[in-house]
């Protein structure tokens, strides 16, 4: 996937993006707490 064959690496690569985007979504959802 994405030119990377070792799942241990592409999972890390995708997790970096997902967790960064997750932080943005969390911040927006809780902005007016």
């Amino acid at each position, binding site marked *: 996937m994405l030119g990377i064959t070792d799942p241990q690496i592409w999972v890390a690569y995708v997790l970096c993006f997902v967790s*960064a985007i997750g932080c943005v979504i969390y*911040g927006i959802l809780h902005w007016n707490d």
Partner: protein
Amino acid sequence: MGVSTPLLGISVLAYMMVVFYFGWLGYKQTKDNDDYMLAGRKVNPFVLAFSYGAAFISTSAIIGFGGYAGAFGLGILWLVAMNIIVGIFIAFVIFGSRTRRMGANLKAVTFPELIGKRFQSRFIQGFSGALITVFMPLYAGSVLIGGARFMETALNIDYNIAILILAIIVAAYVITGGLIAVMYTDALQGVLMFVGMGILLVLTYSKLGGVTEAHQALTNMAYLVPDNLAAVGHTGWTTMPAFGSPTWWTLVSTIILGVGIGVLAQPQLAVRFMTVESTRSLKRAVLSGGPFIFMMAGVAYIVGALSNVYFFNTQGMISLEVAGGNIDKIMPEYINSAMPDYFVIFFLLTLLAAAMSTLSSQFHAMGTAFGHDLYREGIMKGKIGKTINVTRAGIATTIMISVVLAYILPPGIIARATAIFFGLCAAAFLPMYSGAIFWKRMTRQGATASLLVGTFASLFWLTFIHAKEATALGISQALFGVDTILTGTWTLVDPILVATPLAFLVAIVVSLMTEPASKEHIEQCFKKN
């Protein structure tokens, strides 16, 4: 260096003037001890997130770990995931909210003071302050060296003078402006770093033909791994090292777990949770904190690894060969040869910002640990007034220690200082800090035992067992005639995997065996304000 020195000099000067302006604003806004130590407890969430990130990410993270990715590949991306999930989300939302609330309840202004007041122990506050005073200058010294090396190569300034210039510039606004100056200059430097790294990511992928194409080219280069690296577990730049190999242990135990978990108990970062006015501010800070870490660490490691494709396409060599075997030179070599001149100048400013933002936080944290926690509370038992000047003297003293260390320590020791400090903080502080804010039954004796066991187990493991430090220090060799007193895999296991669980265990067992604190005190610590 392909760029013109006068143009770079003017850029650096303009950048310094803006930094000094922010430092001066901090000085003008500092009215009392709370302002100087905690930026008045009402910092904007964006400033918190960017100053936390900029303090966390130093030159060594971009150049040192970026170079590591150039040599060993993308396995270090697990550290980025850890830094975002543990270092931002868990740190801000779970640790941060309780730290802020307890700090306000107990009127604590430093990390050691928070722990000391929670357990009603001047010893814990003084000992924690002493630990930071002794070991943080090592970490600050290594960042100082990184910044000075940049000034030496980019501006043609003598290296020894560069150390002094950098220390004096940062000291000037930290000593006068306190944490307000530190956090606002950090946030400014963070913005510069964010833009610089964003451009670097886009330029790199576009130069190599796109995301998948670049990764595929890197995957296809696995046969080029040098024999000496393959022998210690290197299997390619888009695969994890061989399980259980020396490279795997270093990556997983020292880098991913050591730095990834160690960040939770960094005094200069934890104190920032006490600078905002509410839990809501911490949640809002997560929004910009996550992307910031991704743009710093994530981009540095991806670009570091992909530099191999660029160098192979243009020179037929892997990055490590181009850098003459020195991993610290991989990123500078790549930036200088692959990037346009205008960007080289901008990137050099990015690196200077990364060094200065980390240095300013270290200077403030170790100065307050020495002046406030160790001297005022630990040694003088609080008998001297709460004046800012005692803290200022503490900051000036610890800066001088850092500068001396930067001059006298050999490069081999100093490069490991970041990982050593993170590991030591995890073992000494994390069990005690976690217990302080999550476990009402934790006792003063449990906290004291955990602090001492974590500290000394970590130092013992570093001195006698973990090969990288034990061999360099030479104490084991002098006493016992062997580099390490254990052999085999044990010499590869980072102290964090041994000392931290041990300190957690001691904290729990001793707490359960001793009398808990009074109900009134616990209510005072944990009440919602």
